[in-house]
């Protein structure tokens, strides 16, 4: 890491997303079970709150950070706090995409077919999140270059 010759390469590649399907073998079944339980539970809680109050209040809880809490806790146990903090950076960008996705679906669900509204909504989440990540990576790697 401290080798000056490799500095430029590592800082550039540090943020570049890499698809590594082999990593899935390292993931533990228990972690997925925890996420399944968190995801299922928050879905039921949101539905119960929606039924007891209004659908829109239930909807607020479909964006409850239960999965993030699960991820942060799992990361913290396995790795370290710095990694958990990194995960939060990505999540903050993904959450902005979530706003765009939910807004789009709320405006189109009654006019478009369900598959189209949800499908395009999901694509909007992905597009907004990835574009924000690219901007973040660009700014962060420039910052590193200037520091280095």
């Amino acid at each position: 890491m401290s080798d000056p010759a490799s500095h430029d390469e590592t800082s550039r590649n540090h943020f570049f997303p890499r698809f590594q399907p082999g990593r899935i073998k390292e993931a533990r079944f228990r972690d997925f079970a925890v996420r399944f339980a968190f995801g299922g539970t928050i879905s039921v809680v949101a539905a119960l709150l929606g039924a007891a109050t209004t659908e829109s209040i239930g909807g607020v809880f479909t964006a409850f950070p239960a999965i993030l809490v699960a991820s942060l806790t799992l990361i913290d146990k396995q790795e370290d706090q710095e990694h958990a903090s990194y995960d939060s950076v990505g999540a903050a960008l993904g959450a902005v995409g979530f706003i765009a996705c939910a807004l789009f679906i709320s405006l189109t669900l009654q006019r478009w077919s369900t598959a189209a509204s949800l499908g395009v909504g999901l694509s909007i989440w992905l597009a907004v999140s990835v574009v924000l990540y690219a901007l973040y990576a660009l700014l962060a790697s420039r910052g590193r270059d200037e520091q280095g």
Partner: protein
Amino acid sequence: VLECRSGTVEVAYYLAKFLVGGTVVVLFAVVSETFEPKRFAGLFSAAPSVLLASLLVTVVLEGTTPASESASGAVAGAVGLVAFAVVSTWAVYRFKGLVGSLVSLLPWAVASLAAYLFLMGAR
């Protein structure tokens, strides 16, 4: 809505919410696990998995009107999610994972409530 449903239908409704919610969350987690670095994989921690799963079940069993209401509430919840994630980048570093997450729930609640009141007022 609760009174209109028979007991069996109600159990099926919540069971569907649980199973579909859990499944979609795991699907996003699987995708997240296959990406490096963590900051990029973190995007998937804020994926609209529970929202999409909930809406799917609601549309199928109750129609698009309540689902649309739910999605508009989710906009407010997502504003809270941004607040949660931003604060947790600091809080997880400052405290341990679980405590850091719990500390971050306060800004989640404040931001969600403020956004909800704003959105409902704007209607």
